[in-house]
Protein backbone atom coordinates (compact mmCIF):
# COMPACT_ATOMS: atom_id res chain seq x y z
CA UNK A 1 0.00 0.00 0.00
CA UNK A 2 2.91 2.29 0.78
CA UNK A 3 4.09 1.72 -2.78
CA UNK A 4 0.75 2.59 -4.31
CA UNK A 5 0.42 5.73 -2.25
CA UNK A 6 3.86 6.88 -3.25
CA UNK A 7 3.14 6.19 -6.91
CA UNK A 8 0.01 8.31 -6.96
CA UNK A 9 1.75 11.02 -5.01
CA UNK A 10 4.59 11.01 -7.54
CA UNK A 11 2.04 11.65 -10.25
CA UNK A 12 0.35 14.38 -8.24
CA UNK A 13 3.63 16.12 -7.52
CA UNK A 14 4.74 15.80 -11.10
CA UNK A 15 1.47 17.17 -12.44
CA UNK A 16 1.68 20.16 -10.17
CA UNK A 17 5.40 20.74 -10.33
CA UNK A 18 6.15 19.71 -13.88
CA UNK A 19 5.89 23.22 -15.30
CA UNK A 20 8.15 24.60 -12.58
CA UNK A 21 10.59 21.73 -12.97
CA UNK A 22 10.82 22.17 -16.74
CA UNK A 23 11.13 25.94 -16.46
CA UNK A 24 13.97 25.64 -13.93
CA UNK A 25 15.77 23.13 -16.12
CA UNK A 26 15.39 25.20 -19.27
CA UNK A 27 16.55 28.21 -17.32
CA UNK A 28 19.76 26.41 -16.35
CA UNK A 29 20.50 24.41 -19.46
CA UNK A 30 18.76 26.40 -22.16
CA UNK A 31 17.37 23.42 -24.03
CA UNK A 32 13.78 22.18 -24.06
CA UNK A 33 14.64 18.66 -25.22
CA UNK A 34 17.27 18.16 -22.56
CA UNK A 35 14.88 19.56 -19.95
CA UNK A 36 12.09 17.20 -21.03
CA UNK A 37 14.36 14.16 -21.03
CA UNK A 38 15.96 14.71 -17.66
CA UNK A 39 12.63 15.72 -16.11
CA UNK A 40 11.21 12.37 -17.23
CA UNK A 41 14.27 10.56 -15.89
CA UNK A 42 13.89 12.28 -12.55
CA UNK A 43 10.26 11.15 -12.39
CA UNK A 44 11.27 7.60 -13.22
CA UNK A 45 13.88 7.75 -10.47
CA UNK A 46 11.23 9.04 -8.06
CA UNK A 47 8.98 6.12 -8.98
CA UNK A 48 11.81 3.75 -8.07
CA UNK A 49 12.99 5.43 -4.87
CA UNK A 50 10.00 7.05 -3.25
CA UNK A 51 7.94 3.87 -2.74
CA UNK A 52 10.78 2.35 -0.68
CA UNK A 53 12.50 5.42 0.76
CA UNK A 54 9.38 7.52 1.27
CA UNK A 55 8.43 10.83 -0.34
CA UNK A 56 11.07 13.46 0.43
CA UNK A 57 10.06 16.49 2.44
CA UNK A 58 10.80 18.76 -0.51
CA UNK A 59 9.72 16.63 -3.48
CA UNK A 60 10.08 19.43 -6.02
CA UNK A 61 13.65 20.17 -4.96
CA UNK A 62 14.44 16.41 -5.01
CA UNK A 63 13.19 16.17 -8.60
CA UNK A 64 15.12 19.26 -9.65
CA UNK A 65 18.36 18.09 -8.08
CA UNK A 66 18.01 14.64 -9.64
CA UNK A 67 17.18 16.11 -13.06
CA UNK A 68 20.11 18.53 -12.89
CA UNK A 69 22.53 15.71 -12.10
CA UNK A 70 21.22 13.75 -15.07
CA UNK A 71 21.60 16.81 -17.28
CA UNK A 72 25.20 17.34 -16.19
CA UNK A 73 25.99 13.65 -16.79
CA UNK A 74 24.53 13.92 -20.24
CA UNK A 75 26.46 17.08 -21.05
CA UNK A 76 29.70 15.40 -20.00
CA UNK A 77 29.01 12.52 -22.37
CA UNK A 78 27.78 14.61 -25.28
CA UNK A 79 30.47 17.07 -26.38
CA UNK A 80 28.42 18.68 -29.14
CA UNK A 81 25.50 19.30 -26.85
CA UNK A 82 27.85 20.53 -24.16
CA UNK A 83 29.48 23.05 -26.47
CA UNK A 84 26.12 24.31 -27.49
CA UNK A 85 24.86 24.64 -23.97
CA UNK A 86 27.83 26.30 -22.34
CA UNK A 87 29.43 23.49 -20.45
CA UNK A 88 31.18 25.83 -18.05
CA UNK A 89 27.94 26.92 -16.52
CA UNK A 90 26.89 23.30 -16.18
CA UNK A 91 30.12 22.48 -14.35
CA UNK A 92 29.45 25.36 -12.01
CA UNK A 93 26.04 23.84 -11.41
CA UNK A 94 27.67 20.56 -10.48
CA UNK A 95 29.83 22.34 -7.92
CA UNK A 96 26.53 22.75 -6.14
CA UNK A 97 25.22 26.30 -6.10
CA UNK A 98 21.69 25.84 -4.83
CA UNK A 99 18.97 27.68 -6.73
CA UNK A 100 17.09 30.32 -4.77
CA UNK A 101 13.80 28.82 -3.62
CA UNK A 102 10.83 30.99 -2.82
CA UNK A 103 9.47 30.95 0.69
CA UNK A 104 6.36 28.81 0.36
CA UNK A 105 7.40 26.43 -2.44
CA UNK A 106 10.42 24.24 -2.73
CA UNK A 107 11.24 25.13 -6.33
CA UNK A 108 12.23 28.47 -7.79
CA UNK A 109 9.68 29.84 -10.24
CA UNK A 110 11.15 30.38 -13.69
CA UNK A 111 7.87 29.81 -15.50
CA UNK A 112 7.24 33.34 -16.67
CA UNK A 113 10.20 33.25 -19.04
CA UNK A 114 8.99 29.89 -20.36
CA UNK A 115 5.55 31.38 -21.09
CA UNK A 116 7.22 33.99 -23.27
CA UNK A 117 9.34 31.38 -25.05
CA UNK A 118 6.39 29.09 -25.79
CA UNK A 119 4.26 31.96 -27.09
CA UNK A 120 7.02 33.79 -28.95
CA UNK A 121 5.67 35.61 -32.02
CA UNK A 122 8.38 33.94 -34.14
CA UNK A 123 6.57 30.61 -33.65
CA UNK A 124 3.50 29.62 -35.65
CA UNK A 125 0.37 30.86 -33.88
CA UNK A 126 -1.18 27.38 -33.86
CA UNK A 127 1.81 25.90 -32.03
CA UNK A 128 1.98 28.44 -29.22
CA UNK A 129 -1.00 27.04 -27.33
CA UNK A 130 0.32 23.51 -27.84
CA UNK A 131 3.76 24.39 -26.47
CA UNK A 132 2.19 26.19 -23.52
CA UNK A 133 0.07 23.14 -22.70
CA UNK A 134 3.05 20.82 -23.05
CA UNK A 135 5.61 22.78 -21.07
CA UNK A 136 3.61 24.89 -18.63
CA UNK A 137 0.49 22.82 -18.01
CA UNK A 138 2.64 19.68 -18.04
CA UNK A 139 0.45 17.67 -20.42
CA UNK A 140 1.95 14.77 -22.33
CA UNK A 141 2.28 15.05 -26.10
CA UNK A 142 -0.64 12.62 -26.47
CA UNK A 143 -2.79 14.79 -24.21
CA UNK A 144 -1.86 17.93 -26.15
CA UNK A 145 -2.79 16.13 -29.37
CA UNK A 146 -6.17 15.22 -27.92
CA UNK A 147 -6.65 18.81 -26.78
CA UNK A 148 -6.23 20.13 -30.31
CA UNK A 149 -8.00 17.16 -31.94
CA UNK A 150 -5.05 16.06 -34.06
CA UNK A 151 -3.38 12.63 -34.25
CA UNK A 152 -0.55 12.20 -31.71
CA UNK A 153 2.03 11.77 -34.48
CA UNK A 154 0.98 15.07 -36.04
CA UNK A 155 1.24 16.88 -32.72
CA UNK A 156 4.59 15.26 -31.96
CA UNK A 157 5.87 16.48 -35.32
CA UNK A 158 4.58 20.01 -34.71
CA UNK A 159 6.22 20.13 -31.29
CA UNK A 160 9.52 18.81 -32.68
CA UNK A 161 9.47 21.47 -35.40
CA UNK A 162 8.65 24.24 -32.93
CA UNK A 163 11.38 23.11 -30.54
CA UNK A 164 13.85 23.00 -33.41
CA UNK A 165 13.01 26.58 -34.29
CA UNK A 166 13.42 27.64 -30.66
CA UNK A 167 16.84 25.95 -30.59
CA UNK A 168 18.21 26.86 -34.02
CA UNK A 169 16.89 30.40 -34.25
CA UNK A 170 17.77 30.86 -30.54
CA UNK A 171 14.42 32.07 -29.39
CA UNK A 172 15.46 33.22 -25.94
CA UNK A 173 14.25 32.07 -22.58
CA UNK A 174 13.73 35.45 -20.99
CA UNK A 175 11.07 37.77 -19.68
CA UNK A 176 10.78 40.77 -21.99
CA UNK A 177 11.57 44.14 -20.46
CA UNK A 178 8.80 46.53 -19.47
CA UNK A 179 9.20 48.41 -22.74
CA UNK A 180 8.69 45.23 -24.80
CA UNK A 181 5.83 43.87 -22.73
CA UNK A 182 2.95 45.63 -24.54
CA UNK A 183 4.12 43.96 -27.75
CA UNK A 184 4.93 40.56 -26.28
CA UNK A 185 2.24 39.90 -23.68
CA UNK A 186 -0.66 39.58 -26.17
CA UNK A 187 0.72 36.39 -27.75
CA UNK A 188 1.09 34.81 -24.30
CA UNK A 189 -2.50 35.71 -23.42
CA UNK A 190 -3.65 34.53 -26.84
CA UNK A 191 -1.94 31.15 -26.34
CA UNK A 192 -3.80 30.60 -23.06
CA UNK A 193 -7.06 31.86 -24.56
CA UNK A 194 -6.66 29.49 -27.54
CA UNK A 195 -6.39 26.57 -25.11
CA UNK A 196 -9.62 27.73 -23.48
CA UNK A 197 -11.57 28.21 -26.72
CA UNK A 198 -10.31 24.83 -27.91
CA UNK A 199 -11.89 23.42 -24.75
CA UNK A 200 -15.16 25.08 -25.66
CA UNK A 201 -15.17 24.35 -29.37
CA UNK A 202 -16.80 20.99 -28.73
CA UNK A 203 -17.54 20.72 -25.06
CA UNK A 204 -20.39 18.28 -24.94
CA UNK A 205 -21.43 14.67 -24.70
CA UNK A 206 -18.58 12.22 -24.43
CA UNK A 207 -15.90 14.91 -24.80
CA UNK A 208 -15.51 15.42 -21.10
CA UNK A 209 -11.79 16.03 -21.33
CA UNK A 210 -12.64 19.28 -23.13
CA UNK A 211 -13.91 20.77 -19.89
CA UNK A 212 -10.60 19.71 -18.37
CA UNK A 213 -8.94 21.70 -21.11
CA UNK A 214 -10.87 24.87 -20.20
CA UNK A 215 -9.79 24.24 -16.62
CA UNK A 216 -6.16 23.86 -17.72
CA UNK A 217 -6.45 27.27 -19.41
CA UNK A 218 -7.82 28.76 -16.20
CA UNK A 219 -4.97 27.17 -14.24
CA UNK A 220 -2.47 28.70 -16.69
CA UNK A 221 -4.17 32.10 -16.45
CA UNK A 222 -4.00 31.88 -12.65
CA UNK A 223 -0.26 31.16 -12.81
CA UNK A 224 0.21 34.16 -15.13
CA UNK A 225 -1.86 36.33 -12.82
CA UNK A 226 0.43 35.43 -9.89
CA UNK A 227 3.54 36.04 -11.99
CA UNK A 228 2.37 39.35 -13.50
CA UNK A 229 0.14 40.88 -10.82
CA UNK A 230 0.49 44.40 -12.23
CA UNK A 231 -0.73 43.52 -15.73
CA UNK A 232 -4.41 44.34 -16.01
CA UNK A 233 -4.92 42.38 -19.21
CA UNK A 234 -3.85 39.23 -17.36
CA UNK A 235 -6.57 39.99 -14.81
CA UNK A 236 -8.93 40.60 -17.76
CA UNK A 237 -8.08 37.26 -19.34
CA UNK A 238 -8.52 35.28 -16.11
CA UNK A 239 -11.76 37.16 -15.44
CA UNK A 240 -13.06 36.42 -18.94
CA UNK A 241 -12.30 32.71 -18.65
CA UNK A 242 -13.96 32.45 -15.23
CA UNK A 243 -17.05 34.40 -16.30
CA UNK A 244 -17.56 32.13 -19.32
CA UNK A 245 -16.65 28.91 -17.54
CA UNK A 246 -19.08 29.77 -14.75
CA UNK A 247 -21.89 28.87 -17.19
CA UNK A 248 -20.53 25.41 -18.04
CA UNK A 249 -23.18 23.38 -16.20
CA UNK A 250 -25.98 25.20 -18.00
CA UNK A 251 -24.37 25.08 -21.43
CA UNK A 252 -25.43 21.56 -22.32
CA UNK A 253 -28.67 19.70 -21.86
CA UNK A 254 -29.11 16.13 -20.63
CA UNK A 255 -28.27 14.69 -24.07
CA UNK A 256 -25.21 16.87 -24.59
CA UNK A 257 -27.11 19.36 -26.73
CA UNK A 258 -25.97 22.97 -26.79
CA UNK A 259 -28.06 25.42 -24.81
CA UNK A 260 -27.42 29.02 -25.83
CA UNK A 261 -27.07 31.87 -23.35
CA UNK A 262 -30.71 32.97 -23.88
CA UNK A 263 -32.13 29.62 -22.82
CA UNK A 264 -29.74 28.66 -20.06
CA UNK A 265 -30.96 27.94 -16.53
CA UNK A 266 -29.06 30.72 -14.78
CA UNK A 267 -29.56 29.05 -11.41
CA UNK A 268 -27.03 26.46 -12.54
CA UNK A 269 -24.29 29.02 -13.10
CA UNK A 270 -21.33 28.92 -10.76
CA UNK A 271 -21.87 32.05 -8.70
CA UNK A 272 -18.63 31.75 -6.77
CA UNK A 273 -16.75 31.77 -10.06
CA UNK A 274 -18.83 34.72 -11.29
CA UNK A 275 -17.97 36.72 -8.16
CA UNK A 276 -14.27 36.03 -8.64
CA UNK A 277 -14.53 37.02 -12.31
CA UNK A 278 -16.34 40.26 -11.48
CA UNK A 279 -13.61 41.19 -9.02
CA UNK A 280 -11.04 40.72 -11.79
CA UNK A 281 -13.08 42.87 -14.19
CA UNK A 282 -12.80 45.72 -11.70
CA UNK A 283 -9.02 45.27 -11.66
CA UNK A 284 -8.88 45.05 -15.46
CA UNK A 285 -10.91 48.21 -16.04
CA UNK A 286 -9.38 50.40 -13.35
CA UNK A 287 -6.79 52.98 -14.33
CA UNK A 288 -5.60 53.43 -17.87
CA UNK A 289 -7.80 52.60 -20.90
CA UNK A 290 -8.74 48.91 -20.84
CA UNK A 291 -7.42 46.21 -23.15
CA UNK A 292 -9.46 43.74 -25.21
CA UNK A 293 -9.55 40.97 -22.59
CA UNK A 294 -10.71 43.37 -19.89
CA UNK A 295 -13.53 44.64 -22.13
CA UNK A 296 -14.62 41.13 -23.13
CA UNK A 297 -14.60 40.15 -19.47
CA UNK A 298 -16.79 43.17 -18.69
CA UNK A 299 -19.26 42.06 -21.38
CA UNK A 300 -19.30 38.53 -19.98
CA UNK A 301 -19.88 39.98 -16.49
CA UNK A 302 -22.95 41.92 -17.70
CA UNK A 303 -24.45 38.68 -18.99
CA UNK A 304 -23.57 36.82 -15.81
CA UNK A 305 -25.07 39.51 -13.56
CA UNK A 306 -28.43 39.60 -15.32
CA UNK A 307 -31.27 37.43 -13.96
CA UNK A 308 -32.47 36.81 -17.53
CA UNK A 309 -31.92 37.90 -21.13
CA UNK A 310 -34.56 40.64 -21.09
CA UNK A 311 -33.11 42.42 -18.06
CA UNK A 312 -29.55 42.31 -19.36
CA UNK A 313 -28.05 45.80 -19.59
CA UNK A 314 -27.97 45.78 -23.40
CA UNK A 315 -27.12 49.50 -23.81
CA UNK A 316 -24.02 48.87 -21.69
CA UNK A 317 -23.21 45.69 -23.66
CA UNK A 318 -23.40 47.65 -26.91
CA UNK A 319 -21.24 50.44 -25.46
CA UNK A 320 -18.59 47.89 -24.47
CA UNK A 321 -18.68 46.33 -27.95
CA UNK A 322 -18.07 49.84 -29.33
CA UNK A 323 -14.96 50.06 -27.16
CA UNK A 324 -13.88 46.56 -28.17
CA UNK A 325 -14.38 47.34 -31.86
CA UNK A 326 -12.05 50.31 -31.41
CA UNK A 327 -9.40 48.03 -29.89
CA UNK A 328 -9.94 45.02 -32.16
CA UNK A 329 -11.45 46.09 -35.49
CA UNK A 330 -12.61 42.58 -36.38
CA UNK A 331 -15.78 41.61 -38.25
CA UNK A 332 -16.48 38.97 -35.59
CA UNK A 333 -16.62 41.70 -32.95
CA UNK A 334 -18.89 43.69 -35.30
CA UNK A 335 -21.11 40.60 -35.64
CA UNK A 336 -21.44 40.28 -31.87
CA UNK A 337 -22.12 43.99 -31.60
CA UNK A 338 -24.92 43.67 -34.17
CA UNK A 339 -26.51 40.90 -32.10
CA UNK A 340 -26.34 43.14 -29.01
CA UNK A 341 -27.85 46.06 -30.93
CA UNK A 342 -30.70 43.73 -31.96
CA UNK A 343 -31.37 43.10 -28.28
CA UNK A 344 -31.28 46.81 -27.47
CA UNK A 345 -33.16 48.25 -30.45
CA UNK A 346 -34.95 45.26 -31.95
CA UNK A 347 -34.13 42.66 -34.64
CA UNK A 348 -34.52 45.14 -37.55
CA UNK A 349 -31.67 47.31 -36.26
CA UNK A 350 -29.42 44.27 -35.82
CA UNK A 351 -30.30 42.97 -39.26
CA UNK A 352 -29.35 46.29 -40.88
CA UNK A 353 -25.90 46.09 -39.23
CA UNK A 354 -25.50 42.50 -40.40
CA UNK A 355 -26.31 43.55 -43.95
CA UNK A 356 -23.44 46.04 -43.74
CA UNK A 357 -21.13 43.11 -42.95
CA UNK A 358 -22.44 40.93 -45.80
CA UNK A 359 -19.55 41.76 -48.13
CA UNK A 360 -16.78 41.28 -45.57
CA UNK A 361 -14.77 38.38 -46.95
CA UNK A 362 -13.33 37.66 -43.51
CA UNK A 363 -16.76 36.35 -42.48
CA UNK A 364 -16.92 33.98 -45.46
CA UNK A 365 -17.39 30.48 -44.17
CA UNK A 366 -18.09 31.61 -40.60
CA UNK A 367 -21.29 29.81 -39.59
CA UNK A 368 -22.28 32.30 -36.90
CA UNK A 369 -22.91 35.01 -39.52
CA UNK A 370 -25.82 33.20 -41.22
CA UNK A 371 -26.85 31.69 -37.86
CA UNK A 372 -27.13 35.12 -36.24
CA UNK A 373 -29.01 36.45 -39.27
CA UNK A 374 -31.34 33.47 -39.15
CA UNK A 375 -32.18 34.09 -35.49
CA UNK A 376 -33.06 37.74 -36.18
CA UNK A 377 -35.20 36.81 -39.21
CA UNK A 378 -36.96 34.19 -37.10
CA UNK A 379 -37.73 36.76 -34.43
CA UNK A 380 -39.19 39.01 -37.13
CA UNK A 381 -41.42 36.15 -38.32
CA UNK A 382 -39.67 36.04 -41.72
CA UNK A 383 -39.55 32.26 -41.55
CA UNK A 384 -38.69 31.46 -45.17
CA UNK A 385 -35.64 33.71 -45.10
CA UNK A 386 -34.71 32.41 -41.67
CA UNK A 387 -34.87 28.83 -42.94
CA UNK A 388 -32.58 29.69 -45.87
CA UNK A 389 -30.08 31.29 -43.48
CA UNK A 390 -30.21 28.30 -41.09
CA UNK A 391 -29.55 25.99 -44.04
CA UNK A 392 -26.56 28.09 -45.04
CA UNK A 393 -25.24 28.01 -41.48
CA UNK A 394 -25.66 24.22 -41.46
CA UNK A 395 -23.34 23.87 -44.45
CA UNK A 396 -20.61 25.73 -42.52
CA UNK A 397 -20.93 24.60 -38.92
CA UNK A 398 -18.13 22.45 -37.50
CA UNK A 399 -19.29 20.72 -34.35
CA UNK A 400 -22.10 18.21 -33.92
CA UNK A 401 -23.86 19.85 -30.96
CA UNK A 402 -24.03 23.17 -32.79
CA UNK A 403 -25.32 21.42 -35.89
CA UNK A 404 -28.05 19.77 -33.83
CA UNK A 405 -28.98 23.16 -32.40
CA UNK A 406 -29.26 24.72 -35.89
CA UNK A 407 -31.36 21.76 -37.08
CA UNK A 408 -33.79 22.27 -34.21
CA UNK A 409 -34.04 25.96 -35.05
CA UNK A 410 -34.56 25.15 -38.72
CA UNK A 411 -37.39 22.79 -37.79
CA UNK A 412 -39.00 25.48 -35.67
CA UNK A 413 -39.30 27.81 -38.65
CA UNK A 414 -40.35 25.20 -41.21
CA UNK A 415 -42.94 23.17 -39.30
CA UNK A 416 -45.45 25.82 -38.23
Amino acid at each position, binding site marked *: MVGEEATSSVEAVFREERGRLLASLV*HRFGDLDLAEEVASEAIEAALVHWPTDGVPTRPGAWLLTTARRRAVDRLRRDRVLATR*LAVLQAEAERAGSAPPADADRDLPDDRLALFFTCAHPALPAQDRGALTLRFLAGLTTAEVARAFLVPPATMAQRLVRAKRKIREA*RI*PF*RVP*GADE*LPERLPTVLQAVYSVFTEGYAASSGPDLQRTDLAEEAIRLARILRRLLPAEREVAGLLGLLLLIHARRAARTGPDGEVILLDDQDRGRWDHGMIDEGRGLVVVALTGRPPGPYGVQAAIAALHDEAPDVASTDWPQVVALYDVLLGLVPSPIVALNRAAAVAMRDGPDAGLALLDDLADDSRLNGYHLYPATRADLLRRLGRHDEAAAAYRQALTLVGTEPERAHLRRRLESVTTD
Partner: protein
Amino acid sequence: MLYGDPPHREEPNVKYMLLFMSPTTTDGEIVDGCTFEDWIRYDREMKDAGIWVSGHPLQDLTTCTTVQVGASGERTITDGPFAETREVLGGYDIIDVPNLDVALDWAARGPGARGGGSVQVRPIAEIEVEV
Protein backbone atom coordinates in the same frame (compact mmCIF):
# COMPACT_ATOMS: atom_id res chain seq x y z
CA MET B 1 13.47 46.63 -16.53
CA LEU B 2 10.36 46.01 -14.49
CA TYR B 3 10.42 42.25 -14.98
CA GLY B 4 14.07 42.02 -15.80
CA ASP B 5 15.87 38.78 -15.32
CA PRO B 6 19.65 38.64 -14.94
CA PRO B 7 21.32 36.17 -17.30
CA HIS B 8 22.15 32.90 -15.58
CA ARG B 9 23.88 31.20 -18.48
CA GLU B 10 26.66 32.51 -20.65
CA GLU B 11 25.65 31.22 -24.03
CA PRO B 12 27.67 31.62 -27.18
CA ASN B 13 26.29 34.22 -29.57
CA VAL B 14 24.48 33.34 -32.77
CA LYS B 15 25.13 34.87 -36.16
CA TYR B 16 22.05 35.98 -38.04
CA MET B 17 21.74 37.18 -41.59
CA LEU B 18 19.36 40.08 -42.01
CA LEU B 19 18.02 40.05 -45.57
CA PHE B 20 16.55 43.39 -46.52
CA MET B 21 13.66 42.85 -48.88
CA SER B 22 12.70 46.02 -50.70
CA PRO B 23 9.48 46.77 -52.54
CA THR B 24 10.00 47.57 -56.21
CA THR B 25 8.15 49.08 -59.12
CA THR B 26 7.43 46.84 -62.11
CA ASP B 27 10.65 48.20 -63.64
CA GLY B 28 12.63 46.76 -60.76
CA GLU B 29 13.33 50.13 -59.22
CA ILE B 30 13.50 50.01 -55.41
CA VAL B 31 10.90 52.24 -53.75
CA ASP B 32 11.47 51.76 -50.03
CA GLY B 33 11.71 55.48 -49.23
CA CYS B 34 15.04 55.02 -47.46
CA THR B 35 17.80 57.52 -48.02
CA PHE B 36 21.47 56.77 -48.37
CA GLU B 37 21.99 58.58 -45.06
CA ASP B 38 19.53 56.22 -43.30
CA TRP B 39 21.64 53.24 -44.30
CA ILE B 40 24.92 54.94 -43.36
CA ARG B 41 23.52 55.71 -39.92
CA TYR B 42 22.29 52.12 -39.44
CA ASP B 43 25.63 50.75 -40.56
CA ARG B 44 27.42 52.96 -38.04
CA GLU B 45 25.04 51.94 -35.21
CA MET B 46 25.73 48.25 -35.83
CA LYS B 47 29.48 48.79 -35.94
CA ASP B 48 29.44 50.94 -32.80
CA ALA B 49 27.49 48.22 -30.99
CA GLY B 50 30.19 45.72 -31.91
CA ILE B 51 27.72 43.24 -33.43
CA TRP B 52 28.37 43.75 -37.14
CA VAL B 53 30.17 40.90 -38.91
CA SER B 54 29.75 41.72 -42.58
CA GLY B 55 27.22 42.99 -45.06
CA HIS B 56 26.66 44.75 -48.34
CA PRO B 57 24.03 46.53 -50.32
CA LEU B 58 23.35 44.87 -53.68
CA GLN B 59 23.04 46.40 -57.12
CA ASP B 60 19.49 46.34 -58.47
CA LEU B 61 17.99 43.41 -60.33
CA THR B 62 18.72 44.82 -63.80
CA THR B 63 22.33 43.87 -63.17
CA CYS B 64 21.51 40.33 -62.05
CA THR B 65 22.45 37.21 -63.99
CA THR B 66 21.27 33.67 -63.25
CA VAL B 67 23.30 30.51 -63.85
CA GLN B 68 22.01 26.94 -63.82
CA VAL B 69 23.95 23.76 -64.54
CA GLY B 70 22.03 20.91 -66.16
CA ALA B 71 22.38 17.16 -65.63
CA SER B 72 25.13 16.82 -68.24
CA GLY B 73 27.02 19.83 -66.98
CA GLU B 74 25.81 22.37 -69.51
CA ARG B 75 25.46 25.91 -68.25
CA THR B 76 22.41 28.03 -68.86
CA ILE B 77 23.00 31.70 -68.31
CA THR B 78 20.04 34.06 -68.26
CA ASP B 79 19.51 37.72 -67.65
CA GLY B 80 17.46 38.53 -64.60
CA PRO B 81 15.22 37.49 -62.86
CA PHE B 82 12.98 40.50 -63.27
CA ALA B 83 9.76 42.15 -62.60
CA GLU B 84 7.53 39.27 -61.53
CA THR B 85 8.91 39.67 -58.01
CA ARG B 86 7.44 42.52 -56.02
CA GLU B 87 10.12 42.30 -53.33
CA VAL B 88 13.79 42.03 -54.10
CA LEU B 89 16.79 41.42 -51.92
CA GLY B 90 18.36 44.85 -51.66
CA GLY B 91 21.19 43.99 -49.31
CA TYR B 92 22.20 42.00 -46.26
CA ASP B 93 24.03 42.24 -42.99
CA ILE B 94 25.39 39.50 -40.79
CA ILE B 95 25.28 40.28 -37.09
CA ASP B 96 26.57 38.43 -34.04
CA VAL B 97 24.13 38.70 -31.13
CA PRO B 98 22.94 36.62 -28.13
CA ASN B 99 19.48 35.62 -29.35
CA LEU B 100 16.57 36.11 -31.73
CA ASP B 101 14.99 38.94 -29.72
CA VAL B 102 18.16 41.01 -30.12
CA ALA B 103 18.40 40.12 -33.82
CA LEU B 104 14.75 41.08 -34.39
CA ASP B 105 15.36 44.36 -32.62
CA TRP B 106 18.25 45.17 -34.95
CA ALA B 107 16.18 44.10 -37.94
CA ALA B 108 13.34 46.39 -36.88
CA ARG B 109 15.75 49.31 -36.50
CA GLY B 110 16.97 48.86 -40.06
CA PRO B 111 15.62 51.42 -42.52
CA GLY B 112 14.61 48.55 -44.83
CA ALA B 113 11.92 47.37 -42.36
CA ARG B 114 9.77 50.40 -43.12
CA GLY B 115 7.98 51.84 -46.10
CA GLY B 116 6.61 48.52 -47.35
CA GLY B 117 9.91 46.71 -47.01
CA SER B 118 10.59 43.76 -44.73
CA VAL B 119 13.57 42.06 -43.16
CA GLN B 120 14.03 38.30 -43.11
CA VAL B 121 16.05 37.15 -40.12
CA ARG B 122 17.83 33.83 -40.58
CA PRO B 123 20.29 32.14 -38.23
CA ILE B 124 23.54 31.11 -39.90
CA ALA B 125 24.01 27.35 -39.90
CA GLU B 126 27.27 26.68 -38.11
CA ILE B 127 28.58 23.43 -39.55
CA GLU B 128 31.29 21.85 -37.44
CA VAL B 129 33.82 19.91 -39.51
CA GLU B 130 35.91 17.28 -37.75
CA VAL B 131 39.61 17.94 -38.33
